[in-house]
């Protein structure tokens, strides 16, 4: 059902009845798989200024590159930046080679590294299209055995699955040969190996934390449930050339990518060649100078949001006319991968220094709420209970349909770079309505670690709306700076 919040502003007219819609009282639940289609006349979309070139990849936030809202099994949540790539068997020289498969609905994530595709969306034997990508992918091996990876996320979830050799085509670029992860919660089966190892590493609980694309993809007998993401995978394009900095790799007693037989009982932790066998940032592998970073360009969306926003990922920084900024401030990022603040910058908020990072894969801003964020309170304080679902989000002081400003100085990790940034944040219960808009620039959730553990300022997808943000990859350089850096 749709919860009508007090004072809820319904933008647009509903064109179909909403029987069975699972749009729920909690925004977090919106991010799961919906059980029926949402249909409404949406707010108009927004689009960035056109960019063209072989180094350009289309990017849509809740637009044509995302899984359809009308797909009952995979509707994507708000603020989802999506793109499509073509995945081919290793050695392919063209995206139109046989057995290549276009994978759409990938989350474009500047906060992680490497391409991860749910095993369930890779065609095993598609007679209609004549493609059978899965059977033409080859496992990355370690001393003759298959390799699997576990990646842990901050919320206590994790993904698990084998690592395969593939050739990946992005935009109009030539293909890059890179290991990719096939997210497969059942690789190795149950018991004391495979996903169960990843399950415990996630730290969340003894069960039910390994991700899959959607609950309906999960066998009824499987010990995993309710973890749908609304994506076909994750395209990690962050500031590092590979994911050796955070991925857990394992060798399995097995030789295939098959869920049932690829990862036997002997699973051991291994350290792989970071530059060869771990997941690579596909941008780092591009040729003709586009391997030093990227620009992410998305339009502004206003205070009440838009149905979708169209933009671009432009590969390379300052090596071509379409990726050369006219005026930006460049912020160095912590490049010491032996400390805990890796790939972070710094903001000053009311005199308090906090670590900060920019991450397109974060749905909203996520900011510590406290003395340094005067003018805002937790939305949950306005209601007797939390049934409205907005507990844990920023609301301007006073229960009203107003917007407040949160101003801070964005600093580089080192040096004298500083830029005053002002975020406009509103009370989402007055404007959040997934029937009319899915892209919002003015929603912030509360960083829950800030009470007794140091919290970071997460400048998520909203920060990209209306900004062209330049990303410089560790180990490379451009006329702006040596990577890693952000510039905007």
């Amino acid at each position, binding site marked *: 059902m749709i919860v009508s919040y007090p004072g809820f502003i319904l933008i647009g007219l509903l064109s179909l009845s909403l029987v069975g819609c699972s749009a729920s009282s909690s925004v977090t639940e919106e991010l799961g798989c919906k059980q029926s289609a949402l249909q409404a006349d949406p707010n108009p979309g927004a689009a960035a200024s056109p960019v063209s070139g072989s180094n350009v990849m289309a990017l849509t936030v809740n637009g044509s590159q995302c899984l359809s809202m009308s797909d009952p099994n995979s509707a994507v949540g708000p603020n989802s930046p999506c793109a499509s790539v073509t995945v081919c068997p290793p050695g392919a020289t063209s995206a139109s080679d046989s057995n290549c498969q276009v994978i759409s609905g990938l989350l474009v994530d500047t906060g992680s*590294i490497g391409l991860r595709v749910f095993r369930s969306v890779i065609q095993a034997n598609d007679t209609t299209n004549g493609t059978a990508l899965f059977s033409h992918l080859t496992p990355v091996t370690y001393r003759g055995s298959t390799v699997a990876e576990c990646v842990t*996320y901050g919320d206590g979830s994790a993904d698990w699955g084998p690592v395969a050799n593939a050739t990946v085509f992005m935009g109009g670029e030539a293909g890059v040969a890179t290991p990719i992860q096939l997210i497969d919660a059942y690789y190795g089966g149950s018991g004391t190996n495979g996903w169960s190892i990843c399950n415990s590493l996630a730290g969340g609980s003894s069960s039910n934390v390994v991700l899959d694309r959607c609950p309906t993809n999960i066998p009824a007998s499987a010990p995993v449930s309710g973890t749908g993401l609304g994506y076909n995978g994750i395209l990690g394009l962050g500031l590092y050339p590979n994911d050796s900095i*955070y991925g857990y790799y394992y060798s399995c007693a097995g030789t295939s990518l098959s869920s049932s037989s690829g990862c036997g009982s002997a699973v051991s932790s291994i350290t792989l060649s970071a530059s060869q066998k771990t997941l690579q940032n596909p941008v780092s592998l591009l040729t003709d100078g586009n391997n030093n970073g990227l620009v992410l360009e998305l339009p502004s969306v206003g205070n009440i949001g838009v149905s979708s926003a169209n933009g671009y990922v432009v590969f390379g920084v300052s090596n071509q006319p379409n990726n050369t900024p006219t005026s930006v401030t460049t912020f160095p990022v912590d490049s010491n991968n032996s400390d805990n603040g890796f790939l972070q910058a710094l903001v000053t908020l009311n005199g308090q220094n906090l670590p900060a990072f920019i991450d397109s894969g974060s749905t909203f801003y996520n900011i510590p709420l406290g003395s340094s964020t005067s003018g805002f309170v937790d939305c949950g304080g306005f209601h007797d209970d939390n049934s409205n679902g907005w507990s844990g989000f920023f609301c301007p002081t006073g229960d009203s349909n107003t917007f407040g400003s949160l101003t801070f100085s964005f600093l580089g990790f080192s040096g004298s770079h500083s830029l005053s940034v002002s975020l406009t944040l509103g009370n989402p219960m007055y404007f959040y309505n997934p029937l009319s808009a899915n892209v919002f620039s003015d929603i912030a959730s509360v960083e829950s670690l800030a009470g007794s553990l140091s919290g970071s300022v997460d400048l998520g997808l909203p920060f990209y709306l209306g900004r062209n943000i330049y990303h410089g990859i560790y180990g490379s350089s451009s006329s702006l700076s040596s990577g890693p850096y952000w510039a905007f």
Partner: protein
Amino acid sequence: MKLVTSPLQRLVLYLAGLILNLHSGLAHAHLGGGIDSIEADRKFLKGEIAQNSAQKKAAMTHAQYSVQEMVVDGVPVREYLSNSGVVFGIAWAGRHQVNFTPLLGSYRAEYETAFQAHRARYPLHHGLKSRSISSGNIQVEFGGHMGSMRGHAYVPSLMPPGVIASDIK
């Protein structure tokens, strides 16, 4: 000059002047247990530690407690031991999450029930960056992002006088 130090660095700086002695080889313990408690857990984590060639151990002492540190899969894990010999808190910070549930000892089942309830209310998805989970006897908080994960768990009723949650980091 670095403008900010990591949590680990801050901890080291904070405790540097308070170290009364430094020795290695302290037995592993878990929440609510003593320093020599639960051989099974010790063996379990010893196996984890053995996989990491860069492991290190350090022991630090505070007026109200001492701290053991070990490295599990590259992530420093600290255990807070009261002067009366009870582990009241654990904390970790590193580039990925760690398997901390074995360190919760007898509070593990209680925590996992609370985690499931928390997850039911805030379902798993890629956007949530952290969780703060309370149950009757134990508080667990963890979260972060790629390359920077942290968390801690503590039992308020076991904390020595004057020690607060933010000390456990």
